[in-house]
């Protein structure tokens, strides 16, 4: 008997008692929706929690804090250390930040621009690490820079940033002038440095995080250091006007551009998350203090995995309860159709065909229930994510972080629910289907069943 004919048989049979079929599918759908929604809370909370922990950082990042004084003579991360990190296997990039030690009065077309940090970095490494841009490109030439996402913000009279930013692309191509201060014969002088904005950094994930930095390459940093004659463009500070000798003396004490450089915010980026642990352990053994989000996430993920398994287990009980309905419906169906089954067997229906028809019917009930239940779950999940934050805000006067999700249904959860429902329906249909194959032909023909 062909599959299409089996389906036609099942459809005919299902039409016989639509109300009973509807109630059984409804019970299965409710069970599936309960399972999916319950488990989706585990998924939602995990996602929100992980996003809170990771923020703008990557799970492949290993942050280097410093060096163990027992193992190293020098402190601070220096060129040799960077070279060592780069030489390690499975390391994709090593990024760092060099904070320029003077403000440089950035301006565009003569108008001052409010900036936070002026940072020198290795753009090649940043590119590897995934430095995100909302417009433009990373610097390639000497005088090219990238500006932070929020530099474009215009402050109102009360000093609050405007809610709307001008388009990032409009700022690409603008010239920003940096006034590099330096001492010449004991006098403070300024030398303008014309730079071109070639890119705008992407928006930080956290709403409260304002990126007002200027990012520049090694070449420009070298240019600034050449002007000041000090590392990172640092200048001595005087409360009163200094003499030429005083300036000379203090500048002499500052590290020279040619001296050993100390790198800030050093981050080792692994090729993928699975390599993080190995690299982090190796670096730690060598005496570098480090930390990776993978360490934190491991425990959080473990906790949520246990929670999700628990929730799926509880939800499955609901589907099992629904299976009683399927069992009952199928048993009734076999009893009602006993004579038809007998006639079919009498003229030559193979028992396995009869079994397959009934199993197909119970699986279809399970499948319909699972599909309806999953669709309902998505609707509930959407409603919960939209409504619950408002309720919490109104009733508990607490604000949740933006994009906080209580319920997330990943496709594999929906697929898992369908598989569980289908499996349970198949198991529920086994006994009635077996009973159908055992119907005695003669009793059925005599209308004794």
């Amino acid at each position, binding site marked *: *008997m062909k599959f299409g*004919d089996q389906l036609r048989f099942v459809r005919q049979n299902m039409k*016989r008692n639509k109300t009973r079929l509807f109630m059984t599918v409804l019970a299965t759908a409710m069970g599936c929706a309960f399972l999916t929604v319950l488990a989706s809370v585990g998924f939602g909370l995990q996602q929100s929690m992980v996003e809170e922990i990771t923020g703008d950082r990557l799970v492949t990042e290993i942050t280097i804090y410093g060096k163990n004084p027992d193992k190293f003579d020098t402190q601070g991360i220096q060129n040799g250390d960077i070279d060592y990190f780069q030489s390690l296997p499975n390391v994709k990039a090593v990024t760092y930040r060099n904070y320029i030690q003077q403000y440089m009065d950035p301006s565009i077309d003569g108008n001052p621009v409010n900036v936070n940090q002026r940072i020198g970095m290795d753009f090649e490494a940043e590119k590897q690490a995934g430095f995100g841009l909302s417009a433009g490109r990373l610097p390639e030439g000497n005088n090219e820079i990238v500006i932070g996402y929020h530099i474009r913000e215009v402050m109102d009279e009360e000093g609050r940033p405007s809610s709307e930013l001008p388009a990032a692309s409009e700022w690409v191509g603008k010239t920003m002038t940096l006034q590099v201060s330096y001492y010449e014969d004991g006098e403070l002088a300024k030398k303008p440095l014309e730079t071109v904005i070639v890119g705008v950094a992407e928006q930080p994930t956290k709403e409260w995080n304002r990126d007002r930095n200027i990012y520049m390459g090694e070449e420009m940093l070298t240019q600034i250091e050449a002007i000041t004659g000090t590392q990172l463009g640092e200048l001595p500070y005087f409360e009163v006007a200094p003499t030429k000798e005083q300036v000379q003396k203090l500048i002499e004490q500052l590290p020279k551009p040619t001296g050993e450089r100390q790198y800030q915010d050093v981050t080792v980026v692994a090729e993928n998350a699975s390599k993080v642990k190995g690299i982090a352990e190796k670096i730690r053994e060598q005496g570098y203090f480090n930390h990776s989000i993978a360490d934190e996430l491991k425990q959080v993920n473990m906790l949520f995995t246990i929670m999700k398994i628990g929730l799926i287990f509880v939800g499955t009980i609901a589907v099992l309860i629904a299976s009683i309905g399927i069992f009952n419906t199928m048993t009734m169906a076999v009893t009602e159709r006993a004579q038809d089954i007998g*006639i079919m067997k*009498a*003229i030559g229906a193979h028992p396995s065909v009869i079994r397959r028809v009934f199993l197909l019917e119970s699986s279809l009930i399970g499948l319909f229930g699972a599909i309806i239940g999953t669709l309902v779950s998505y609707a509930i999940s959407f409603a919960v994510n939209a409504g619950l934050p408002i309720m919490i805000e109104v009733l508990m006067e607490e604000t949740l972080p933006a994009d906080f999700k209580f319920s997330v249904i990943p496709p594999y959860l929906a697929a898992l629910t369908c598989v569980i429902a289908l499996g349970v329906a198949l198991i529920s249909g086994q006994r009635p289907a077996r009973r159908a194959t055992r119907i005695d*032909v003669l009793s059925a023909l005599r209308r004794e069943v």
Partner: protein
Amino acid sequence: MITMMGISHQFKIGKKGKERIVPVLHDIDLSVEKGEIVAIVGRSGSGKSTLLNLMSGYIRPTAGEIKVAGRMVTKLDEGAWADFRLAHYGFIFQNFQLISSMTAYENVELPLVLKGVGQSERRKRVEKMLENVDIAAFASHYPSELSGGQQQRVSVARSLVLEPPIVLADEPSGSLDSENEKSLLTMIKQLNHELGITFVIITHDDQVASVAHRTIRLQDGRLARQAPLVSVESIKETFDLAKGGHHS
């Protein structure tokens, strides 16, 4: 076509532990030749339906062997019997045994569906068969919308749609009036004559028995009278050969 040798059958009745054994058939030897119409007659309780049920494979004999179309069928399991029935038998029942939720067309189509015949081939064969039994106009009717005679025609069409070599009929005219009975018997004779189909008919009706080439009478589970076309010796020979023995 059908050979039975030493067939005995007994039923167990009563509750478990207090069962009583009721013998129904005793040491039956018979054979039905290809193209024959054989009527099995006898009074109620004589064992004629049991004999037909044994031939159909609905029950197994307590003793003896059955061979159909050259195949020993006595020890076939339920699934193999189902396949064998579909391939070799057509059935006509006293109460027609049509599936009430299916139309006349779907009832006739059922054996073809079970055999896995394709849709277009099915349509062709069912329509032809419905026309042959003169019921095509009622193809979309459900059994409850048909008269007894019409239902029996549908039943005959269903039994023949796979063109089986053997048709087993259990009191085929039992629920029919005399006119429909006459029509059915004409049809049986015609099918036997034109297609060479072997018929084994259980009946207590002399009219029905009159169309048979041969009548086998059962009395208290034993053959009362038989005019075999082949001798009992030849039946034994058939079984000996089937078992791999030799006739001396």
